[in-house]
């Protein structure tokens, strides 16, 4: 209510195109003109912006909550139409696609994805957010920018339990000997999961990775390391959980370059649950 009134007063002169121009001008790296990800997915640049929601996955639920909060521009990190290019030829025969598209149109929602440039800029919002949520002290990142952290020695089980509790994850997945003593963490985000056999690394924490038939299949590698009593672990947070805190960073940053309209994170949240 309050935010709605404020938005009417403050957004008269701000279009989605102007918001995007501010983002491009201030993101700190040259804009990739060839990006197929960081583009409009719905709505037009001429739309007057009442407020901006950042989110991880642009789920139907997020879209509805943004509309309810009076925010008609969404800046998601990930897809809206369930494929990386948001290629509509993949989905246009689908009934749910048409429902989501029609809802977006009916509520005049503009979507502009921010993926590649989030990872290009330094620091990358997603690493900052994930490290904070995991309780990894930036002062212990050595060397800086390496996403490698040394923590006081603990067991893989205690580390995983702490992460699960801290981040409220329902479907955390861990590979490795629970009793393995670990202290050196390599952090990854989303699908950018570091190789499980990195030297001087005990545990990889990341979002998602292909399980089998990739370049270095971590579940099998870590299971074998455990069979050999090598202290190695692999903790998969899930793609959404892994990068969502970075979208809070992004919301806070957009506020600094677009002070005219309200900006907030709307969490898509972990999609999964696990049977007890």
């Amino acid at each position, binding site marked *: 209510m309050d935010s709605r009134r404020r938005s009417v007063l403050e957004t008269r002169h701000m279009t989605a195109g102007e918001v995007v121009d501010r983002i491009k001008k201030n993101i700190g790296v040259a804009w990739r003109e060839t990006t197929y990800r960081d583009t409009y997915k719905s709505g037009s640049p001429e739309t007057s912006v009442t407020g901006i929601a950042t989110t991880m996955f642009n789920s139907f639920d997020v879209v509805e909550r943004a509309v309810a909060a009076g925010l008609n521009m969404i800046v998601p990190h990930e897809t809206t139409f*369930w*494929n990386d290019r948001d290629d509509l030829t993949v989905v246009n025969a689908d009934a749910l696609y048409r429902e989501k598209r029609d809802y977006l149109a009916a509520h005049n929602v503009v979507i502009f994805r921010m993926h590649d440039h989030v990872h290009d800029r330094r620091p990358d919002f997603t690493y900052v957010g994930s490290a904070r949520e995991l309780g990894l002290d930036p002062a212990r990142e050595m060397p800086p920018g390496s996403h490698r952290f040394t923590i006081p020695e603990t067991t893989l089980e205690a580390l995983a339990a702490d992460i699960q509790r801290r981040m409220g994850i329902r479907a955390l997945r861990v590979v490795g000997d629970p009793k393995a003593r670990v202290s050196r963490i390599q952090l990854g985000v989303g699908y950018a999961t570091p190789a499980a056999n990195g030297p001087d690394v005990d545990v990889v924490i990341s979002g998602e990775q292909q399980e089998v038939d990739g370049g270095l299949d971590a579940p099998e590698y870590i*299971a074998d390391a455990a069979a050999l009593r090598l202290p190695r672990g692999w903790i998969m947070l899930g793609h959404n959980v892994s990068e969502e805190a970075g979208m809070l960073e992004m919301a806070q940053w957009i506020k600094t370059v677009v002070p005219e309209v309200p900006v907030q994170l709307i969490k898509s949240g972990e999609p999964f649950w696990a049977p007890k």
Partner: protein
Amino acid sequence: MAALSRREFVRLGTVGAAAAPFVLEGAATRAAAPTAQAIVDRIQRHVGVDSHPTTVDAFKAGDPSSVVTGIVTTSLATIAVMRRAIQVGANLIITSGPTFYSRADAPMPAGRRGTPPPPADPVFEAKHDLIRQNRLVVWRFSDHWRARTPDPFAQGIADTLGWTKYRVNGDPLRVTVPAITIGALAKEVNTKLNARGGLRVIGQPTARVQRIAVLPGTIPIQTTLDVFPDVDVIVAGEIREWESSEYARDLVHAGRSKALVLLGRSLSEEPGMNGCAMWLKTIVSEAPVRWIPAGDPYWRPAT
């Protein structure tokens, strides 16, 4: 190996024809235990699918001319599976997954382009040593096993879950079960497939479902879009999290009584490798065949 192939040929000649009944074929050769190559040749003759021009189905380790003392099937030829195979006296491992942690099954980790080769990896080295010291032979059986009709991986899951009687039109990929809540279904799948922590679900636990698609392995969004309109639940191995899981989340949010149950790729292929062991027994009588599951690689902390 040419000599072995010849011996195989002669051996087949003794029972008259390659098409002779399996039991006769086995009985006639009990004295001469077959080599790993001979077993693979026999598999290729009997599998009944077109040969794939590019395939991962090949020897990954060991000497194909080794005489086979026993055969183990598994979804993943892990060190733990190899140790159990050694314990039971088997030396041929037939796996649906890689052995050396990649589709290429390169015997050493690949270096990054433009950098010196990486130092020896202790996990790779130990696995090579285990194979060498115990004269194991590993052969991958994925593309051709998967190509059989009905899909042996789906069949394995359906059999394990007791769904075979609920098949729609005899297709193990589709079953219609008595109405069950998504919560109860997930629990049953979790228990019967011996999942540890790998099972993940999207869907309202209290919603009731009946029509299930069983899609082991890894499925792209196109498959999910094609299949979901006709079923309540997709039980899949693996998906990409910017694709099918988000689609399922949106479906549920839009009010559909639907669910996506993810098993993990390896766990989804384990029952099909049990089926593979049973099938192998029908064409190999000279050596014991057993399934040793690699099991669910994932766990979750308590509470």
